[in-house]
């Protein structure tokens, strides 16, 4: 990957949230920029301010939460990795259109019946029968 500044920040965002996820159990109160810097920044030769920028960026995307702790901020991941993966795979068109009436529209997640699955497999079998040369590969 060409290392444009945006890509580099993107890579760092992933490293940082990874750190927040793996230490979430040990530090439910969250981590400060200093702690994150000590954990992952020093060995990578990253400036303290770089990590501050990265955490600020992820916070603006609502992917981490932060709370005041004295003069520092404490950062926690807003959701677990599993929750976020599930969210990204289940965005519905209703949310997208901001209109609940359209939730069902273009939203093809309805459960398939066994008959529908049979029809699907039959359609593929027919296609393979029409093109035996390709099907052998």
């Amino acid at each position, binding site marked *: *990957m060409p290392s444009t500044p945006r890509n580099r920040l993107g890579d760092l965002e992933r490293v940082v949230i990874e750190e927040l996820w793996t230490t979430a159990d040990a530090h439910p109160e969250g981590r400060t920029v200093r702690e994150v810097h000590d954990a992952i920044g020093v060995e990578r030769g990253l400036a303290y301010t770089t990590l501050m920028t990265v955490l600020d960026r992820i916070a603006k995307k609502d992917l981490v939460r932060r709370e005041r702790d004295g003069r520092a901020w404490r950062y926690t991941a807003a959701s677990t990795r599993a929750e976020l993966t599930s969210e990204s795979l289940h965005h519905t068109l209703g*949310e997208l259109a901001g209109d609940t*009436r359209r939730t069902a529209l273009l939203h093809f997640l309805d459960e398939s019946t066994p008959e529908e699955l049979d029809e699907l497999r039959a359609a593929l079998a027919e*296609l393979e029968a029409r093109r035996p040369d390709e099907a052998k590969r």
Partner: protein
Amino acid sequence: MLVVAALVVLAVLLAWPVPRALARATSLRRAPRAALVLWQSTAATAVLAALLAAPAAIPLLVGRQVRLSEHWVTLAVAAALSGVVAVRLLLSGDRVGRNLRTARRRHRDLVDLLGVPGEGADRHMRVLEHTTPTAYCVPGVRRRVVLTQGTLDRLGPDELSAVLAHERAHLGARHDLVMEFFTVVHEAMPGFLRCDDALREVHLLIEVLADRAAVRHAGAVSTGRAIVAMAGGPKPAGAMAMADSTRVATARIGLLDAERIAGLPIPVVAAMMYAVSAVLIATPLALYLGAIAELTLV
């Protein structure tokens, strides 16, 4: 005055019965590109006719060929139609565009954080750690192709290349803009006029078009197998996905190697659809220009 009435009638025909009939003409799916052009010209002509109805009356009134007192009903209908359509289109366009972009931005942030990025030519690709096989793309300037680990595990190399060709076709041809145009027009219509089947049909045509690209790349059988492997998987909104409902997937497999429509070779039917599209879009323009020409003749 006939011109104004004709524009109103044209707009109403293309907004109500025509999309309903077109959504039932499923054999046109075998020529997806021409069918999409026909759908686009239908929608654009309806919008144009509605928007031009009131302006077309102006030269007639200025030229004193018609008196307001005699034709006030037609004129009121035309004015209301043009005004309401213009306002609703602007509002709908703003809402749909903003919601789409917000959802996509959020989604891109998520997959960038969660997914392992590809390298080199695949740098727009993100692989999510999830067992359900699914693949989709997030269109836009900072586009993404998203795959799950389950997809990589379950699909063979030819099937995977079919999936990637399908998603690249969506991104390369900006299918999202076609879909956005139809969504804006659809949402601009009042509820009783909206035709959900029409929007669904357009969406299917876009998928069939991307399937064509996959067939060219990886062959019909590999594409068919990929569709079956991905059927039923979840599909995020605002994205264009290989996964669909089972019935839609079955329909798409039947279309992978279609050669004729109603006994005619596909290019012949496609040429006819292009011709109809051109005539459609020319009609409201010709009517409007006719109205203006009458003014200059006076």
